[in-house]
C-alpha cells in the first residue's frame, strides 16, 4: 500500500470519527489540539484505525501518535514494514 493510499484512509477514518470535513484535514493537524479529540475519542479513533487496517496495535505505541501525519507515517511503517 502506498503512503498516499494510507493517507487517504487515515483522513477518511479521522473525518468520520471526529465528524470533520475530510477536505479540511491537514497532515499537520493534531488530533487533540486542532481536531478536538478528547482522551476517549482518541482511543476510539485508534480503535477505528485498527479496524480499517485490520491490525492489532500495541497500545502504548499507538496512543503516542498525536497528528494526522504522524498516524500516516505510523501505519506506513507498520504496513510496509519499513
Amino acid at each position, binding site marked *: 500500500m502506498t503512503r498516499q493510499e494510507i493517507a487517504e484512509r487515515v483522513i477518511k477514518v479521522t473525518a468520520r470519527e471526529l465528524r470533520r470535513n475530510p477536505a479540511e484535514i491537514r497532515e499537520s493537524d493534531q488530533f487533540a489540539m486542532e481536531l478536538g479529540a478528547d*482522551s*476517549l475519542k482518541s*482511543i*476510539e479513533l*485508534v*480503535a477505528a484505525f*485498527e479496524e480499517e487496517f485490520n491490525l*492489532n*496495535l*500495541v*497500545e502504548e505505541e*499507538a*496512543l503516542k501518535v498525536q497528528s494526522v501525519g504522524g498516524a500516516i507515517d505510523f501505519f506506513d511503517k507498520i504496513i510496509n514494514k519499513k
Partner: protein
Amino acid sequence: MKTYELQDVPQPNLIENIFPYSLPPLIKFEGKIHETIDGKTVEFDPNEVKTRDIHITDTTFRDGQQARPPYKKEQMVKLYEMLSRLGGPNGVIRQSEFFLYTKNDRETIDACRNLNLKFPEITGWIRANKGDFRLVKEMGLKETGMLTSSSDYHIFHKQNQTRKQAMDQYVEVVEAALEAGIRPRCHLEDITRADLPGFVFPFVQRLERLTEKLPDNMKVKIRLCDTMGFGLSYPNAAEPRSIPKLIWRLRNECGVTPDRLEWHGHNDFHKVHINAASAWIYGLNALNGTLFGFGERCGNPPLEGAIIEYIALKGDLCGINLPVITEMAQYYEKEIGTHLAPNYPFVGKDFNTTRAGIHAGGLRKFEQIYNIFDTTTLLNRPPRVSITDKSGTDGVALWVNDFLGLKGEERLSVMKVAKIQRWVMDQYEIEGRMSSITDEELEEQVKINLPEYYKKHHRN
C-alpha cells in the same frame, strides 16, 4: 545543609527489602528509642520485637460481644475454629477469652474444646468476686481474666470503695484462683487514667510478691486495659497516658516480665491499632484484640490488623493462614449478618478497589503501583476497579481483563474496550446516571461488544 544529587538510575529502585509485595510491607528499625522517665533517659530497643514471643490474644467473644447482639453458639464455634486456622500452628493467636455466665456461654466453651485445637487456648473472664470464680473452677479452665479496676473513677465512683478495700478484694480473688491452681490474669481497667504510683504499682508489686515463689506458669498476668482509649504511644507523653512509660515501669520497677503483660485497647480516639502495636514494640508480648475491631463503643484493636502487623514486624508469615481473614469477613457478612464498612482495611468490599481512572491506569501497567501487597495470593482478593464516569477506559480494560481472566499478552487493549467505555460515559452524560455501573451491566456489555472473547474466555 546536606546536598542531594539526582541519581538518574537505569532501573527503578522499588525498595523491595521493605516492600517485598509477597508479604505486607516490612517494618524495620534503625536505632534505639529514647524516653525520659523521672528526668533520666531510658532506652528501648525496638528490634527486640523481632525475637520476643509477641502474640495475639482474642476477646471477640467477650469484649467483642459486649457491643453487639450475642453470637449463636454455632457461630462462635465456627469463628473459634477459623481463629485457630488463622493463627496457625505456632499459636500466633494464643488465647481466646469467653464469658462464663450463661448456659449458652458454657455450652459454647464445651463445643470449642471438643474441637481439640491447640490454639487458641480458651480462658475465662469474671468479675473479681469469689462467687464468679466458682464458674471458672467448674469449667476446668487453666486461666481466667478478672476485672480489677485501677482508676479512682472506678474505685471511688463505681465500686464505692477505698483503694485499700479494692486492692484487698482483688487480692482475695487472686489468692482463691492460685489456691485452685488457676492462673489469674488481672485486668487493670482504666489504667491510662489511674494514679499509677498511688495504686497501680503498689497493687502490681503486691501481686508479684504473692506469686514470686510460684512456677512461671502460675505467676499473675497483667492486662493493661486502656478502657477509654486514652493511651498515647508518642515518645515523652506524660503519665498516666504514656504507654512506653507504663510498660517500662511495670517491667523495671515492678518486675513483671513481658510474657505476663498484655495490652487491651479501645478506639475512642482512633488510636487503637497503633497503640496496641506500640505496646508490642515498647516491650510487652500480648496484644488483645477482636475480629474486625468489634467491641465496646468504638471497638478494640482489630485482630486482623494485628496479624498483618505481626507479619510486618517478624518479616515472615510464621504459619499464619492469611486467606482465613477473607473467609471470616464473608462469614460475618453472609452467616452472621454483620455488615463490614466497604473501606475497612483488608476485608471491606472496596479495600483494594479503585474508582479513579488514573489509578486504574497504574494498576493495569504494574499492579504494585496501587495495591498494598499481593492481596490475590495473601487474601484471595485481587485488586479491583469500580466503574463510574471517573474510572476511565483504563478502568474498563482492567475490569474486562479481570472478568475474562486474561493475563500477559492476552490482555485486551483500551482500544478493544473503547465501545464499552463509550456506553459507560453515555450512562452518565446522556442518561444522567448517579450510581456505579454494576458487574452485571458490564458483563452484558462484554457480551454485546466483545462476543468472541466472551464466548471463548468467560467461565460460568
